[in-house]
C-alpha cells in the first residue's frame, strides 16, 4: 500500500514561496490503476517525484509499503554517456537484481539490438523511453509511476508496455499522469483530478472526466 497524508510542497521561486501541493491525501493498493488528470502546471510531475521519493514533502507524510518505480517518462534515470547495457547493469545492481537476467529481459523487450552497446545519448527519445520502461519492468516494482509521454510514445510499443502492465494487475499498481482522457481510459480503472494543489478522487472515470472538463 502507498498512503499520502496531508502532503504539502512548495518551491522558492524568485524569493517567493510557490505552493504546488496543498494537502494531498491518497491511498493506493496493489491492483489499482489510477489516472491523475491535471492541467499543465497543476503539479502532476511534482506529485510523481514526491511519490517516487526523488523529492521530499515540506509537510505531511508518505508511507510506502510497496516498492515504487522511478517516475517513467521524465528523462533522467538513464546516463547519457553510458551504453544502454551499462545503464541496465547499473540499475540492476542498485536494486539488487540479477544482472544477466535483467540484461536479457531488456534486450528482448526494448528491441534495441546493437544500440544496446552504444551510449544512451545517441538514442532517439522513443528508444530511450523503451529502454527505461523495459528496465523498470525488469526490476519488477509493486507500483509504477508513468507519465503520459511513455504511454503515448510509439504505438506498437505502447501496446506491449500496456500488455505487460496489464498482466501485472493484481500484484502491481499503476499511477498514470495525463491530460488525455483517452489514455486514462485505456490504462486506468479509476481517476483523480489534481486542482489547486489538491487531489480529488472520483468513483468512476466518467465522473472524473466531467470534473476535469469543468475546470
Amino acid at each position, binding site marked *: 500500500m502507498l498512503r499520502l497524508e496531508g502532503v504539502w510542497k512548495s518551491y522558492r521561486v524568485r524569493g517567493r514561496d510557490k505552493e504546488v501541493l496543498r494537502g494531498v491525501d491518497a491511498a493506493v493498493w496493489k491492483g489499482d490503476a489510477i489516472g491523475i488528470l491535471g492541467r499543465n502546471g497543476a503539479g502532476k510531475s511534482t506529485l510523481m517525484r514526491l511519490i517516487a*521519493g*526523488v523529492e*521530499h514533502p515540506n509537510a505531511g507524510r508518505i508511507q510506502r509499503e510497496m516498492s515504487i518505480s522511478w517516475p517513467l517518462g521524465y528523462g*533522467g534515470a538513464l546516463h547519457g554517456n553510458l551504453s544502454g547495457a*551499462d545503464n541496465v547493469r547499473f540499475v540492476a545492481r542498485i536494486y539488487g*537484481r540479477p544482472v544477466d537476467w535483467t540484461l536479457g529481459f531488456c534486450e528482448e523487450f526494448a528491441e534495441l539490438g546493437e544500440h544496446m552497446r552504444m551510449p544512451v545519448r545517441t538514442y532517439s527519445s522513443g528508444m530511450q523511453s523503451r529502454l527505461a520502461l523495459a528496465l523498470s519492468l525488469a526490476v519488477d*516494482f*509493486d507500483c509504477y509511476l508513468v507519465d503520459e509521454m511513455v504511454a503515448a510514445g510509439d504505438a506498437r510499443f505502447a501496446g506491449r508496455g500496456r500488455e505487460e502492465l496489464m498482466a501485472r494487475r493484481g500484484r502491481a499498481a499503476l499511477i498514470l499522469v495525463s491530460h488525455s482522457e483517452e489514455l486514462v481510459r485505456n490504462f486506468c480503472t479509476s481517476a483523480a483530478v489534481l486542482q489547486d494543489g489538491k487531489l480529488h478522487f472520483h468513483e468512476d472515470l466518467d465522473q472524473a472526466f466531467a470534473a476535469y472538463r469543468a475546470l
Partner: protein
Amino acid sequence: MRPGPILPEPSLSRALRVQFNVLGALIMREMHARFGRENLGYVWLFVEPMILAGCVATLHHIAGHGLPGGLAPFPFYVLSYTPYYLLRSIVTRASTALEANAALFFHARVRLHDVLMARTVLECAAVLVALTIFLTGVGILTDNWPREPLGIAMGLVLMALLMHGVALLVASLGVLGAHNVDRIVHPATYLSLPASGAFFMVWWFPAEMQEMILWIPTVHVYEFVRHSFYGDVVPFHYDISYLGAWILVTNTLGLVALRAARPHLET
C-alpha cells in the same frame, strides 16, 4: 526464471545490503563513465596519479635537492605528491558532483551522500594502488622499503576521510546557490599546497613555529605517512586523535550541510 519481487521489509541487514548494492553500482558506473571501456580504460585511474607523482619526484631528484636528515628524496616526493593528489581529486570534483549526477537521484535508493562516497572510495583505492606500485618500484630499484606499509595506507585513508568531509561541504555549497564555489575551490587547492605539509617537515622549523604548523590537519597526515615509511630516523610530530577530531567535525558538518542542500537540488 523471473527473480522474486523486491520486498520493502525494513531491517538493518536489508538496509546494509541496499547500501552495499548502491555503492558498488555507483563505483562501477563512475569507472565506466570516466574511463570508458576502450583503450587503457581503467588503467588510467592508476596511471594518472603515478605520472604526476613520478614527474614531481624525478624533477626534485634531478635538481639534487638534498633533504635534512639524509632522507632518500625520491620516496619523499612520491609521498608528498600522492596524498596531495588524493586531496585535490576528492575536493575539486565535489563542487559539480551532485548537479552532474542529478539524473541518478531519480532512483530514490541513491542518496546524495552515496554519490560522494563512491567517488571518495574510488579515488582512495586508485591512489593506494598507484602508491603500492610506486613504492614497490622504488624498493626494487633503490632498496628503500617502507618500515610500516600499513601505516602509509592508513595515512592515505585518513586523508581521504578528512577530504571527504571537506568535499561534503563543498558539494553542499555548490547546490546551495553558490555556483561560483567551483572557481574558488580550484585555486584554493593549489594555494593550499605549500601549507598542507606536502613539501616540509615539522622538525625543520623552530619550536614556536612548529606549534602553529601543527594546527594544520593535513600536516599530521604527511608526518604520519613519512614516519611509516622511514621509521625513527628523524623526529616526527603528529597526533592521530587531533586528525580524528578534524575528520569527525568536517564530516558531521558536511552531512548537516548536505541535508540542508537536498531540497535545493534541481533534478
